[in-house]
């Protein structure tokens, strides 16, 4: 933690109170990153960055105003403080938003030390992300997307009750892609991973996964239009569930854009489904300790045995619904107060893979157009998908050029089968067993 940066928070906080705020809180985010990408055997892009932003939320006469600055000199901080108070004065009364956390200090320093690999080793690593793809398949037309990056970030929080929070993070990530062409057909797939050290990143895994799927889909074709059982990979299910994550948002409920707003304690999913938000889940890549209002994070059961048990709350939504904050306030230096989750964990069922994957089903490996093809209020969706038609756990054929459509709310209730093993998505932020959905519309 840098003491001089903490002083910037204290200055902005003081300036904001001096400017007329009754109370306020301040967030400072700082990040440094380094990234490389390769093309035609040479480093094509080399990027170094350092950035910072400080933001204040001022509350004056029950009105809220927000302002931020990327410059940390005193004049800029004073300007930001005045702008926040001015914005608050021109805003409308907001009786729900208050600075509620009265005491606490969270100082979380990453236990992971910066990777000490030489720059030459990183360059060599990046070059291999391209060359290994090209070397392993003569049909590779290009490796258009590849890269290695290293990121350090730190975030600071301070409110007018002197509640202070600090957390830093460090990680590396890499990815590569394979664009294959054979005759008039082409296909592409990419794979990436994250780690704490360069040696955590596995070039062979990224290369082989990219090539394996791109190669299969080169021969892929559409399915005959009809109704199929569907199995998502954990990554595609993360994306699918994430699109409809407003079902857990108290802020969306407050704004009448959460379709489950009036379904608390109602059955919204198959009775075997339990979903919990676990900020410090032991297998998760990132651990989360405090929210954007200075509350300590804690486990939260969202759905239990299919029944909706809670929404994500911050202090404002908690005031509105006359409940208590769940410690899920989310706010960046530039943004307004919202809510957000951390690591979602879905409980396992009882079926082995052998049982869950019996008979014929469409396994979805890649989704295109999920956000644009979904209505998060009605739950209707229609997205393009790539994957495999499988039978009894074995691939029968590669599938591309199909659309999958249905209704998310109905699918949650109609989950047909739940596996007995918890799997994680690629960045270890979501954990769930394999799920099988019955009779989903697929057009080809």
């Amino acid at each position, binding site marked *: 933690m840098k003491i001089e940066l903490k002083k910037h928070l204290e200055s902005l906080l003081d300036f904001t109170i001096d400017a007329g705020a009754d109370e306020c809180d301040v967030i400072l985010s700082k990040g440094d990153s380094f990234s490389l990408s390769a*093309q035609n055997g*040479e*480093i*094509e*892009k*080399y*990027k*170094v*960055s*350092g*950035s910072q932003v400080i933001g204040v939320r001022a509350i004056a006469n029950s009105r*809220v*105003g*927000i302002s*931020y*600055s*990327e*410059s*940390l000199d005193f004049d800029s901080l004073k*300007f*930001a403080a005045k*702008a926040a108070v001015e*914005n*608050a004065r*021109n*805003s*409308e009364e*907001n009786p729900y938003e208050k600075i509620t956390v009265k005491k606490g200090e969270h100082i979380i320093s990453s236990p992971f030390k910066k990777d000490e690999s030489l*720059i030459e080793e990183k*360059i060599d690593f990046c070059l291999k992300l391209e060359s290994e793809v090209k070397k392993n398949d003569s049909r590779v*037309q*290009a490796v*258009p997307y590849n890269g290695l990056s290293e990121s350090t970030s730190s975030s600071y929080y301070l409110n007018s009750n002197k509640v202070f929070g600090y957390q830093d993070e460090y990680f590396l990530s890499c990815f590569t892609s394979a*664009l294959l062409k054979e005759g008039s057909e082409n296909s592409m797939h990419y794979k990436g991973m994250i780690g704490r050290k360069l040696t955590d990143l596995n070039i062979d895994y990224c290369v082989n996964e990219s090539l394996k799927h791109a190669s299969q889909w080169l021969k892929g074709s559409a399915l005959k*239009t009809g*109704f199929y059982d569907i199995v998502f990979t954990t990554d595609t299910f993360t994306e699918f569930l994430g699109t409809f994550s407003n079902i857990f948002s108290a802020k969306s409920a*407050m704004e*009448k854009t959460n*379709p489950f707003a009036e379904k608390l304690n109602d059955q919204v999913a198959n009775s075997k489904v339990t979903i919990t938000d676990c900020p410090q889940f032991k297998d998760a890549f990132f651990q989360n300790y405090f929210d954007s209002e200075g509350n300590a994070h804690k486990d939260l059961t969202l759905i239990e045995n299919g029944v909706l048990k809670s929404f994500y709350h911050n202090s404002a939504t908690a005031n509105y619904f006359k409940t208590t904050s769940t410690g899920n306030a989310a706010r960046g230096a*530039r943004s*307004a107060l919202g809510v957000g989750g951390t690591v979602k964990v879905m409980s396992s069922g009882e079926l082995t893979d052998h049982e869950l994957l019996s008979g014929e089903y469409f396994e979805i490996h890649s989704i*295109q*157009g999920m956000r*644009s*093809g*979904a*209505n998060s*209020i*009605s739950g209707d969706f*229609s997205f*393009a998908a790539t994957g495999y038609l499988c039978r009894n756990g074995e691939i029968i054929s590669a599938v*591309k*050029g*199909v*659309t999958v*459509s249905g209704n998310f709310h109905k699918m949650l209730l109609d989950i047909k089968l739940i596996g007995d093993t918890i799997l994680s998505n690629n960045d270890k932020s979501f954990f769930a067993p394999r799920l099988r959905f019955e009779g989903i*519309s*697929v*057009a*080809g």
Partner: protein
Amino acid sequence: MLDKKLANEILFEAISLGADFCDIYVEKSKVETISLNSSRIKDVRSGIDFGIGIRLIYGDKALYGYTNSMEKMELINLTRILAEQYKKKVETSLALEFKSKKISQIASIGNSDITLSQKISYLHKLDKLTRDAHSKISQVSIGLSFKEQDIEIFDSEGLYMTDKRPYCRISTTSIAKDGDKQATGMWNPGVRGGYQFLETLDFNWIAEYTAKQAVNILNAKPCPAGVMPVVIDNGFGGVIFHEACGHPLETTSVEKKASVFWDKKGEMIAHEALSAVDDGTIDNLWGSLNIDDEGMPTQRTQLIKNGKLENFLSDRIGEIKTGHQRTGSARRESYKYAPASRMRNTYIEPGSFNLEELLSSMGDGLYAKSMGGGSVNPGTGEFNFSVQEGYLVKNGKILDAVRGATLIGKGEEIMKNISMIGNNLDYAAGTCGSVSGGVPVTVGQPAIKVDKILVGGQA
């Protein structure tokens, strides 16, 4: 913003370390946002973005870094770090006399002294009109955003350019509710201009349009799936061309051969009825620019003429790698990104048919009145787009509203299947995300008829 002497010292450092070229991009942006929800102002935000990006080019390699600092040593150190891998000692006596080029300025709607409370009253007015437009409207969300981007560009060839870019946009979403059923309608116009834009808007029309769209979708049936002809109406319908053809024509994709069109210049890549343009010079349009982010005056670029591929969109690195001349298309979201070739205002040029002629020639199919978003894989050309508001067509007559329709296909194929072009060209504002971040772009087209395309919906 950046002292010219210091700019010269940075460029001198880069060239003396063997860089073939160096440019400095300085940005200071004022950002304001007001949000309304549940008929109340939800938040009022403002801020200042400031940063400096430095790019060194060695051969065809671009090295890029940025910082929020204006300190001399920070900027010189950043330049040295970037040069570390490729540096070679070069004797130079670079002493630039920075020269600006005089360029014609596109017109922008003004930014009158409208107060914050006046801005807020516009939002309340639109909220009330939308709620009054239909009894089934249960919620209205409106966002008003304004950004004024001041930029300076210095380069090692002595170029010094400045620009002020105002952007104003209003986003409105209405939600219709009937029992358990909910649906949304939306309209998000934007201009390269100031707050006077609000005075040009017909709020009654916007309110009725979004309310009617939401209510129509509320009662829509699931769209049947299958391959069928589709008429896509004007304005935001142009998002298909933007995604399926525009992105693969950026040298950012072409230089990596990650474009299905990378070797097709001079060839017929579309139906002969189709001509398309990317034009950064249109007054007031959301994607217009005086200069691009390398300081080059922007221009009108004919992409396709009567089906033949005429030009790619190119920036400095694109020109170095592909030989395609720069088109004033280097763009970036902010100083945090190196520039890349990107679209500006991209549209299909109008033809001679009216909408009724397109529908009647289609017979049975889908009429996509309003498109949602979508994406494309430039390498394979595979795209997908959602239909925001669609209707089944029988014997050329518009019938029931349908929901959940998605159009998917390959860029190469759809370009050849666009067989009729309407005469009702219109534009729509959007934010395009790609390698250099999210930039304001306009998509546009008249109504078009696609002879066959896979429509995803209910089996």
